[in-house]
């Protein structure tokens, strides 16, 4: 495979495109609301009308607005159909040359779509994730070719540093710096690992990227491997994501067959092999040292750092670990340049961030916005606020490691520093909206139950501390707690935060601390003289 071959594939793919293209979402969300049946019905309708030479039905990845799925969009007209039922497909096909179809037409001019800036999701919902040609026609693998033939590994690392990309897994460590550390370490064997163990409840960006555009991750990995000097990569993906796994397997097979993975990639001396490792349901495996243990076939138990994986990781070798979304940013940065990337976002947080918007919100789904976009814009404008005229009580970001941001802080811009200032974190990008019906003690207890179950048990603060915090929260919920318990809860939270071994324990108290800080009335209402509990178990709000 050489550049001319790649261009040939792209040209042929573009030429074979038919004048009218009907894109049908086949990502997990839409598939579970009859997406496959809709696609089959569209295929049948096209065949029945003898339109095969003019119309093409394409199964694509996530189009973002999951709550209105299954989604179907027609090119070049751009008409978006929502909540499509198989019986409506005949009329959609009949309306391709103009006229109205018997299906809900979505408004593509609403802020949900227009406020987005697509970098990571640029191909999502546009290309067929199961065909490598579709990715190549969207400029795929061109960056890898450029890197292998026109750049030194050091230049690649410099480009990533200049772009200012920070890790999208949550902590926001500068990606270029991490790459430079692994590149500098002398070793015979090095590894690159994709952390696709998206365990945060309420987050589904990684899933969506893998299901919608798997080749982008492989290309990002290959570029990273070249830059740091690795020849073997692993994708550690959640077992709960069977569709993502199967599309990734397909992608690896296709790339290998074309010589874009394996030995002598693009006829260069660079060799790169990728294997998938399937997770088995342990939240702690999202922590990098635990993830490494799991790839090695052990219990996913973290170990103290340093040494960091960059120095001693998988099988004791230097290992580069990044999140799915981080790798997804790599190819566009090399294609369009570091300055282009650095021009998006804020001074310290460059680029865009993908959020999974869910909970009590009108438009549920996946959005990508420039860093620094105010939370209010995301929740109220793009998300359409709480359905049925309810009001936002809190926005939970970062899952069990994050915190609840109150309504009063909705003007906070989403970037790493600002979110930390209001006691939450970016996390991997889950964003759950809660309304007045949600009691924050219950929410904190829900997250603590999660952390208690998921604690690996290696260190005492996390193993015993989460259990005690959970007990205290239960006691508060059941109106058996005193002011003293509340004080103990605070102390315990601080202790677990400061003394736990890994990120799980260190961040487990965050939902409790942030709800204590912003919603003390929810706690106070449950302390003291027992009163009648309300019908839904939630506390009546004190005046």
């Amino acid at each position, binding site marked *: 495979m050489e550049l001319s071959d790649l261009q040939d594939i792209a040209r042929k793919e573009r030429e074979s495109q038919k004048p009218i293209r009907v894109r049908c979402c086949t990502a997990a969300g839409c598939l579970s609301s009859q997406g496959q049946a809709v696609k089959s019905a569209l295929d049948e309708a096209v065949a029945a009308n003898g339109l095969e030479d003019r119309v093409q039905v394409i199964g694509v990845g996530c189009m973002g607005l999951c709550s209105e799925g299954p989604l179907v969009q027609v090119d070049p007209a751009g008409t978006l159909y929502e909540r499509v039922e198989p019986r409506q497909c005949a009329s959609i096909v009949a309306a391709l040359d103009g006229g109205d179809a018997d299906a809900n037409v979505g408004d593509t001019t609403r802020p949900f779509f227009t406020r987005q800036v697509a970098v990571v999701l640029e191909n999502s919902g546009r290309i067929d994730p199961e065909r490598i040609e579709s990715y190549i026609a969207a400029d795929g693998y061109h960056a890898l070719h450029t890197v292998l033939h026109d750049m030194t590994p050091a230049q690649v690392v410099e480009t990533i540093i200049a772009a200012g990309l920070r890790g999208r897994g949550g902590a926001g460590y500068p990606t270029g710096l991490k790459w430079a550390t692994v590149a500098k370490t002398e070793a015979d064997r090095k590894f690159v690992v994709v952390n696709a163990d998206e365990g945060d409840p309420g987050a589904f960006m990684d899933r969506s990227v893998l299901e919608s555009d798997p080749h982008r991750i492989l290309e990002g990995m290959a570029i990273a491997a070249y830059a740091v000097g690795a020849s073997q990569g692993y994708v550690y993906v959640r077992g709960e994501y069977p569709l993502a796994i199967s599309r990734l397997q397909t992608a690896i097979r296709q790339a290998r067959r074309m010589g874009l993975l394996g030995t002598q990639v693009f006829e260069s001396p660079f060799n790169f092999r990728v294997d998938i490792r399937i997770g088995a349901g342990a939240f702690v495996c999202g922590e990098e040292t635990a993830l490494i243990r799991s790839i090695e076939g052990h219990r*996913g138990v973290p170990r103290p750092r340093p040494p960091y994986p960059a120095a001693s990781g998988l099988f004791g070798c230097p290992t580069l670990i990044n999140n799915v979304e981080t790798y997804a940013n790599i190819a566009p940065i090399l294609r369009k340049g570091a300055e282009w990337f650095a021009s998006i976002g804020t001074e310290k947080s460059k680029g865009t961030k993908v959020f999974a918007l869910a909970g009590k919100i009108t438009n549920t789904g996946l959005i990508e916005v420039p860093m620094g976009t105010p939370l209010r814009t995301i929740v109220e404008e793009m998300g359409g606020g709480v359905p049925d005229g309810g009001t936002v009580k809190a926005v939970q970001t970062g899952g069990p490691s994050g915190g609840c941001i109150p309504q009063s802080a909705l003007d906070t811009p989403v970037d790493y520093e600002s979110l930390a200032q209001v006691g939450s974190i970016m996390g991997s990008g889950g964003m759950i909206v809660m309304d007045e019906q949600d009691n924050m003690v219950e929410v904190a207890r829900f997250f603590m139950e999660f952390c208690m179950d998921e604690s690996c048990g290696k260190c005492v603060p996390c193993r015993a501390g989460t259990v005690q915090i959970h007990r205290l929260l239960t006691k508060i919920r059941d109106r058996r707690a005193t002011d003293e318990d509340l004080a103990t809860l605070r102390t315990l939270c601080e202790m677990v935060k400061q003394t736990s071994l890994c990120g799980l324990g260190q961040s487990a108290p965050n939902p409790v601390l942030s709800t204590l800080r912003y919603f003390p009335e929810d706690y106070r209402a449950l302390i003291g003289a027992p009163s009648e509990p309300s019908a839904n178990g939630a506390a009546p709000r004190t005046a």
Partner: protein
Amino acid sequence: MESTVVAREKPRAAGGAKQHPSGDNRFKMLEATMKRHQYQADALIEVLHTAQELFGYLEEDLLIYVAHSLKVPPSRVFGVATFYHFFSLKPKGLHTCVVCMGTACYVKGAANVVTAIETMAGVRSGETTGDGKLSLLTARCLGACGIAPAVVLDGAVTGRQTPDTVTQLVKGWLE
């Protein structure tokens, strides 16, 4: 002891997958997976995934068999199998109902769905009914937050469920 029998018949390097003494063909497929990973210990989790897929759950003999084949102590195999939620050491019911308890599903009432099934089927979350017809399980997050609350019924993900809709569906299984 069965385990020593297994140990003596070490996997051969060539000549296809060997036959398990029980004659159960599923062992052949398990062997094939182990062979693909060259019987390396770091493939343990992959092998357990395959084993559970083939046999439905990981019974003790199966774990011992894997331990011997990969030459790792049974304690490590047990340790790994019990550490990860995905692996089950007990047989599952004829039908399975998995309720997603991710945050999005939770705030949209997934807990009420679980309670409704528990009451209707007389089974607790994580357990199987006495007649072996239904296993009720909960998942940490399926990543299908857009259609919350999500419930997986015999492998098919369904969205926007209510206590009523799910109990209706599950009731059919129990009759």
